[in-house]
């Protein structure tokens, strides 16, 4: 241990013999660290956005359907005894929230304009624990009340098509489960904008009770959405739900929406490729520095060998120098990277002057890039830096160890 410590001390001091060179190398490495941290943070920010839009504001983590529902989306493929099942699921510790939904297509009309809409009947109190829909209401309106009062919340696109605003009255016409056509008079209490293009264009929210009145299906729902307290609890949540739900179809959000999952995987993969390139490029500089550092000390290393220092220890010494280098670069780069990340997380990178908001994968993204700082991200960068530095140090270290003392000391 004592020896390891002294080797580290030697490695550290060797680094500072050539201050200018060390400074230059550290600068390059720190730039790499900062760049990597920013890329990861923005990537995580986008992931958080996507996750928020798709999962937190709609899907939930786990969904339960009647086995035939996903294919046809038929009104009749509903889950029976929904209340009892929901109560059972709520009693499971793994679930932070459980909510049942009924879906129906209707023609909604306001004044002389009408459009097709996809109605979602929800229990507002339960839904608040599962999704963040209630936070997506635009100013001037409000979410549904806890009890059924004939309220409807329109998607922003749908509201625009109908020319409707909060306070307006709407007529909804739909086919009930017994085949008859029903109509209802509702008033608009709010307008939502989730960021999912399709949902905003044709979706609307009503109270479960109000929708049951329109289309029947009392005591039944089409979909039960569950949410776990943390992202890493999703799989156990699904397992528990499967056990409780008997023969019903239980899926995680990835299975329900593979396209979004695919998008995020692609985004993730791109990020790793980017990081790989950054580190590879930094590796060249590190290699050169350490190689130069070793070669200019040929005579000295020869002397050490003559004095009895084993090749293994020489390797260790060079590696210690590499560790010191990585440590300095970390100390220089991480605070700067963190500062930049936190600034980006707070203020976002406002690119709206150059690009307007854009759509990708059916989701609307704002052109203000927001970063998300996660300790895992920082940890990954630091680990990567140390790994790259140590790998780059292998060749110089081995070269140093292979010197024959006699030859080395003869060199000028």
């Amino acid at each position: 241990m004592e020896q390891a410590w002294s080797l580290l001390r030697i490695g550290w001091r060797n680094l500072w013999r050539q201050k200018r060179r060390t400074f230059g190398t550290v600068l390059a490495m720190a730039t790499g660290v900062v760049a990597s941290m920013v890329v990861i943070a923005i990537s995580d920010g986008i992931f958080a956005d996507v996750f928020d839009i798709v999962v937190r504001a709609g899907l939930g983590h786990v969904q339960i359907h009647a086995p035939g529902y996903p294919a046809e989306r038929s009104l009749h493929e509903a889950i029976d005894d929904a209340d009892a099942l929901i109560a059972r699921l709520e009693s499971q510790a793994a679930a932070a929230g459980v909510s049942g939904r009924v879906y129906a297509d209707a023609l909604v009309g306001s004044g002389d304009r009408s459009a097709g809409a996809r109605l979602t009947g929800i229990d507002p109190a339960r839904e608040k624990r599962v999704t963040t829909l209630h936070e997506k209401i635009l100013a001037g309106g409000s979410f549904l009340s806890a009890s059924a009062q004939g309220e409807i919340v329109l998607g922003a696109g749908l509201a625009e098509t109908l020319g409707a605003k909060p306070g307006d009255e709407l007529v909804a016409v739909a086919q009930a489960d017994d085949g008859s056509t029903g109509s209802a008079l509702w008033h608009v209490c709010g307008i939502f904008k989730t960021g999912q293009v399709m949902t905003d264009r044709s979706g609307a929210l009503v109270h479960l009770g109000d929708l049951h009145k329109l289309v029947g299906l009392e005591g039944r729902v089409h979909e039960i959405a569950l949410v776990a307290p943390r992202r890493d609890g999703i799989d156990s949540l699904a397992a528990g739900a499967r056990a409780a739900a008997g023969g019903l179809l239980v899926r995680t959000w990835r299975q329900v929406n593979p396209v979004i999952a695919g998008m995020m995987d692609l985004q993730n993969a791109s990020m790793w490729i980017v990081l790989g390139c950054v580190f590879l490029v930094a590796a060249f500089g590190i290699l050169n520095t350490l190689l130069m550092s070793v070669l200019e000390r040929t005579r000295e290393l020869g002397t050490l060998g003559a004095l009895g220092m084993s090749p293994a220890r020489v390797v260790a010494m060079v590696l210690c120098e590499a560790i010191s280098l990585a440590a300095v670069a970390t100390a220089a780069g991480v605070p700067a990277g963190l500062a930049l990340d936190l600034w980006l997380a707070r203020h976002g990178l406002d690119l709206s002057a150059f690009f307007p908001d854009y759509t990708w994968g059916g989701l609307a993204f704002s052109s203000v890039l927001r970063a998300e700082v996660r300790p895992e991200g920082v940890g990954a960068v630091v680990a990567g830096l140390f790994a790259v530095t140590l790998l780059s140090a292998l060749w110089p270290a081995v070269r140093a160890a292979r010197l024959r003392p006699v030859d080395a000391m003869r060199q000028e």
Partner: protein
Amino acid sequence: MDEARLLLGMASRNLRRHQRRSLISGSAVAFGLALLMVSAALGDGAHEQMIESGVRMMAGHVVVQARGWQRTREPALAVHDADAVVRIVEAALPGADVVPRVFFHGLLSSAAGSAGVGLTGVDAAREARVSETPARMVEGAWLDGSPDGILVGATLARTLKLKIGSKVVLMAQRRSEIESRLFRVRGIFRHGIEEIDAFSAQIPIVAAQNLLDLGGGVTQVAAHLRTEAGTADATRAVQDALAGTGLDVLGWRDALPDLHQWVVFDEAGMYAFMLVLFVIVMIGIANTVVMSVMERVREFGTMLALGLAPGRLRALVLLETALLGAGATVAGLAAGLLLCWPACTVGVDYAALAGGAAMEAAGVAMQTRVVGHVVVWKVGVFALATFAMTVASGVLPARRAARLRPVECLQHR
């Protein structure tokens, strides 16, 4: 002259003297350039595919529309006497495919329900040459001559429970009245983009014109060129041909601003990243050059003592950096071209990374298999920029070398 040859000789020999170091530094630069070339090729290839797709689906490389329609999208704003306009555009752009279209919104109803849709009235024969839809039919066939045929998206068909031959009622606003017509489903398409598959349908252009009482007018006359590169010239040609008619003539960048923005955004992101990468490489080069100068302080001092002008010493250091840059640029070009070869023939399949599903951006499908496209002038710019940046890395160390004082150098070590 001899002096220049001496400096050049010394520069190249100095590089060779530290072969390994020069090689490592040069490799970093070469790697950066090769990576830049491949990224740009793949990016350009992907964007071209997207642009082709988007332009086919929703516009043309050059479009002619009524003034103001691009902004307001009012169906009443029409290009009158469409046949004449089509002929004029065909004359101005020989070799281009010209298609007339009518765009409007309506409500499509079947026994199972109704849905709001975006409709396109198309000239079946002309459209088939340009549109991707005929290739994406999953049931039935492309529009034939029948005036009441309609094509619907697969999701829309499922929602309204439509099959081939199903009857649907289309309601649309004609001035202040609602008009409705009966159509029969002739085909069902799937593009893989929800917006299109769930919300769009196509009918014969004559039926659209009748429904909306447009007479011989259309919403848009779109021209399709062989390659995107000719857009600017083509736009100008059509603008000249239609001068004085009061019609808007737009290139695809103005007609599909979202797509254009997406491409610009994506490209900018890639270049921003490459810039950061290059900065890291250049810091490394500068570092190496500074070190090589510091190592030779005594040698430089001697030369200054002998009477070598300081400016020449700076030139020597810059020459070394330039030689390194030149070699690395050439190596990078070679490596880049080598990598671009498979990228541009076989292409890269992102499906493995993305888990297989089709993806979309700015309303256009992104194919998972991207075939790269090397734009020659861009490669030239990259090579030049790489060389310039490498030389620039040496400027400060060279200046330092020129400022050395012989006395200090000679006492060194």
